[in-house]
């Protein structure tokens, strides 16, 4: 009986440890693989906001409540907000940038390998490769929509450093902006098998008075056979959007 109990405990422990580890990955690296999605209104407005037609009310995801804009940038944000129906880069189906892509209301898939983490996003077939091999960002500056991502593990947390952005993307539909100097640090920390705590720090000395942070849970999509489909934004309105292109 004792042997059977011992056997069961050992095999359970082993299975648990195996479940935590990723095949081929470094020992102890958590398994973040799967299909994930946020559930909030950050894509509309990352700060507190009331409801409006078609847009639910939302509690903000910004630590401290308010984005610490420099005075000129706050004016620009307000102008963006006034013109958001056409000025939002997503209104012309451009790539959403980081971290807006994370909290767009579409699923994304994380796949892990020894030397990289892939994140594939359903929205606009956006992809990000997070290089985990200790390599540096390429020499810059390069204008990417989604930046260049280099990552490492800090305990259970995947830490991702992102630079090389253009100044074209917004953080949300409300017109929150950045410059080419944007520097994003993401932290993905698993909390149980079906949640990841996502924390993202924004730094841009051209636009903000100090770095600031957003945080939100990522939820595992648990439906059987769930998979990414396609959202080909510009294809659906190509005639109209391509008019002046």
């Amino acid at each position, binding site marked *: 009986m004792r042997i059977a109990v011992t056997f069961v405990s050992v095999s359970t422990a082993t299975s648990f440890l195996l479940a935590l580890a990723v*095949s081929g990955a470094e020992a102890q690296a958590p398994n973040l693989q799967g299909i994930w999605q946020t559930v909030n209104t950050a894509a509309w407005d990352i700060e507190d906001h009331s409801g409006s037609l078609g847009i639910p009310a939302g509690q903000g995801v910004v630590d401290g409540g308010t984005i610490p804009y420099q005075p000129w940038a706050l004016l620009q944000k307000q102008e963006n907000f006034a013109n958001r129906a056409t000025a939002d880069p997503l209104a012309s189906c451009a790539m959403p940038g980081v971290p807006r892509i994370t909290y767009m209301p579409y699923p994304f898939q994380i796949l892990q390998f020894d030397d990289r983490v892939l994140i594939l996003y359903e929205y606009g077939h956006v992809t990000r490769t997070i290089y985990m091999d200790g390599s540096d960002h390429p020499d810059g500056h390069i204008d990417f929509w989604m930046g260049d991502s280099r990552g490492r593990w800090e305990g259970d947390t995947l830490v991702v450093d992102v630079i090389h952005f253009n100044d074209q993307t917004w953080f949300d539909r409300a017109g929150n902006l950045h410059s080419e100097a944007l520097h994003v640090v993401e932290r993905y920390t698993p909390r149980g098998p079906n949640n990841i705590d996502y924390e993202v720090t924004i730094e841009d000395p051209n636009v903000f008075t100090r770095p600031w942070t957003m945080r939100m849970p990522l939820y595992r999509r648990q439906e059987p056979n769930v998979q990414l489909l396609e959202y080909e934004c510009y294809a659906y309105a190509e005639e109209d959007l391509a008019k002046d292109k």
Partner: protein
Amino acid sequence: MQKKIWRKINRFAVIGVIALLGAMPVELFSQQAWDPPRTVDGHPDLQGYWDGGPVNASHSIEDGCCDVVHARMQSRTADRLGLLEPLIIDPPDGRIPYQEWAEVKRTQLLYDMETPTELGHIDPEDRCLLLGAPRSNYRGDLEIRQTNDYIVILYEWAHAYRVIPMDGRPHVGETISMYNGDSRGRWEGDTLVVEAKNFNDQVWLDSHGSFYSDKLRVVERWELIDSDAIRYEATIEDPNVFTRPWTLAFTMGRIGGDDYEFFEEACWEGVTNKHRLAAGRLAVAAGERQLHTHEEESQ
């Protein structure tokens, strides 16, 4: 005496033949056994970066590249014209087996592309639309990654990707259609077999207007034939458009060293077709239409 000598000669001959056989390399006697590098689950490791095979194929899988004007404008030398590797292996004449009505429609597109007046006259690649399978695989460089449950193909162009579940799950429902279709994979020995369907009818197999319907089904076979080469084969079926299933095949070569990375290639954000459409509308208004052809005489 002569019998004795012959017996000796025979004995030496036998010994000599055996010695000769023994000295020969073993490969001549065993099957040339290629054992590919494998992932931890025992399947061939296809991971890495690969070229998209004979690149001219994306212009035309029947004729390669390109028309005379194109060739001259890009200073293409003779050795870079045409099909760099024959692509369609079945039917043997290397032509897409279009139904009659479809051949007519395709010829119409070969006129329209020279004087485009609407977006549907323009190669989907020039509209930054996802190019589906198999075209994505001969359009340019690709990257393959494998986990236990998924094979993922990433394409540098337009940051496209295909996810291939390997867990035997069913396809999505019939009424979901996608540019890149819906893929399901399995291993047959050391060959990766991918079945793809649920395509939409919005894009072409090449720049020559080689269209298809949403009943397209593609079966791909990916085989690592040596450490730096994948043999790719795709059987294409569409009862609405083709007279029969047909097959194309080519070899992809490994590219890149240790530090190789893809760069982000935004497409839609920077694309413009307004000059082409403006020119096309001017030409059509002036009654000028011509067939897109690679024949010298008609240029």
